[in-house]
């Protein structure tokens, strides 16, 4: 059992307080999963560059930060660097043809790249979402959309790297949050690895992100990718996938995991349970609906 949430502001240039909103909505679902929490937030796109979030699992944070900067300098240019707690945020000119994350992780001990994108930033940690909000100063984050997750671990270990959201490495700006279990994970992962993709964790949910990104890269639409996933993913799932300009959701054929969407002219709000939507959006005009078995939905800007 896990809790998943999302928000998407419609229309060109529409933004909202996605950092505060996603962590608040996660906290409403903490009973569904108190192990860890995380968010993928989509801020204003970086012009001429990419934003990178690196997690430093080290006590010597200053040294680790220096090592990351040295490693990145060898393949691209660092334009900005700032660190809050153990999350290092970089603005770089490019991702060295998709190799940037691998370069950092190969050269710096216990450094893990959580996200690369023009606008996407992934922050996750153990504990409650409100604590993560404080620790990483997410309360002021304004953006166009975001997804969040509060986790009860079932298939892989409880640590920060195995927390959600997962980045669809190496594809910029694509992330997933998932509630459920993917039972043909190993088969799917092997198939995607044969196509050249690399996985950062042992978590079954990571495969959804890479699967969808792979379909999008091959020229498929988000709609096609979501529909194909209903057939190709085995197990129980309700998931949210987020791209640079949209969000999509899908539910398995047995409708085992809950997922609601509520929509008005300005926004789409998504959550495992209505309690999470109502706490932040009491407006009775915003009526949540449950996604049906095998149903997919998506919104693009």
């Amino acid at each position, binding site marked *: 059992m896990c809790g998943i949430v999302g928000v998407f502001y419609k229309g060109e240039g529409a933004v909202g307080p996605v950092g505060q909103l996603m962590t608040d909505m996660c906290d409403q679902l903490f009973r569904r999963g108190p192990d860890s929490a995380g968010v993928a937030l989509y801020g204003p796109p970086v012009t001429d560059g990419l934003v990178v979030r690196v997690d430093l699992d080290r006590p010597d944070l200053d040294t680790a930060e220096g090592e990351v900067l040295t490693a990145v300098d060898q393949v691209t240019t660092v334009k900005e660097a700032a660190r809050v707690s153990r999350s290092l945020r970089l603005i770089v000119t490019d991702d060295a043809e998709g190799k940037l994350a691998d370069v950092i992780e190969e050269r710096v001990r216990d450094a893990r790249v959580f996200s690369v994108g023009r606008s996407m930033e992934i922050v996750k940690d153990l504990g409650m979402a409100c604590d993560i909000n404080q620790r990483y100063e997410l309360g002021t984050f304004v953006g166009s959309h975001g997804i969040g997750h509060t986790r009860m671990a079932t298939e892989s270990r409880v640590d920060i790297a195995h927390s959600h959201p997962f980045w669809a490495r190496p594809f910029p700006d694509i992330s997933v949050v998932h509630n459920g279990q993917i039972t043909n994970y190993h088969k799917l992962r092997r198939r995607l690895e044969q196509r050249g993709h690399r996985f950062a964790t042992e978590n079954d949910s990571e495969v959804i992100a890479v699967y969808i990104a792979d379909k999008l890269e091959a020229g498929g639409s988000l709609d096609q990718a979501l529909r194909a996933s209903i057939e190709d993913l085995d197990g129980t799932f309700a998931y949210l996938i987020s791209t640079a300009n949209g969000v999509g959701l899908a539910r398995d054929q047995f*409708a085992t995991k809950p997922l609601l969407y509520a929509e008005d002219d300005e926004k789409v709000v998504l959550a495992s349970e209505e*309690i*999470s939507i109502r706490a932040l959006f009491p407006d009775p005009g915003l009526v*949540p609906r449950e996604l049906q*078995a095998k149903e997919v939905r998506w919104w693009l800007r």
Partner: protein
Amino acid sequence: MVAEMTAVTVEAQDLETREVNRAIKRSIADGAKEIHVLHPAGRHSFAVALRADDVKVVFEGPTGWYTAGMNFGPHVVIEGNTGWGVGECMMGGRIEVLGHAGSGTAASIRGGLVYVQGDTGARAGIAMKGGALVVGGDSGYMTGFMMQRGTIVICGDAADGIGDSMYEGTIYVGGSIASRGADAEIEEVTDEDRVLLKQMLGDVGIDENVDGFTKIVSGRKLWNFSTKEPELWKSAL
């Protein structure tokens, strides 16, 4: 004075769930006949395990999961959506959802009525052992899964797998049926069925022509295992 005795308001906003439920129980014990709960805000497990007749509990807004479960007697009204498992294991009484309901609506009820004005999610009426479920809108995947007794009426469309592996009981569908589940058979609608439907729908304030309804019952082929019918068992979940 009498009005004060019989009608009570509970503000849920500042109370824990247990405190809300205690306030409801205390009000019933004190003789209240109508209890209004304000700002339920989609929270879980409200108005459960109540045993009382002639009592109405009204939620002025949406409730969360397992609302009004394990009840025997009271009339619960939810003015909004409700989550999963509304009315679970109800022995008797009446639940009205004036919005949509999540999955597992009226799971395992033994008696009473659950009415959902809007749509229900997956597995509404799962393992029903009596009573009635009336859905004003559409019903989700595998409605009436393994039902054992009782009646389900769906005014709208039914999603895939309706009546899958049902033992007994009756399902009526007013709209289209995406697909029937294993061993769910269509039976001819009789005059008695029409009278029953008219009465059940009238009871919840729906005035609808019942001529177009489809009746689904158990084919009873899954009651006993037969080695001569392996295909039947292969397709059953």
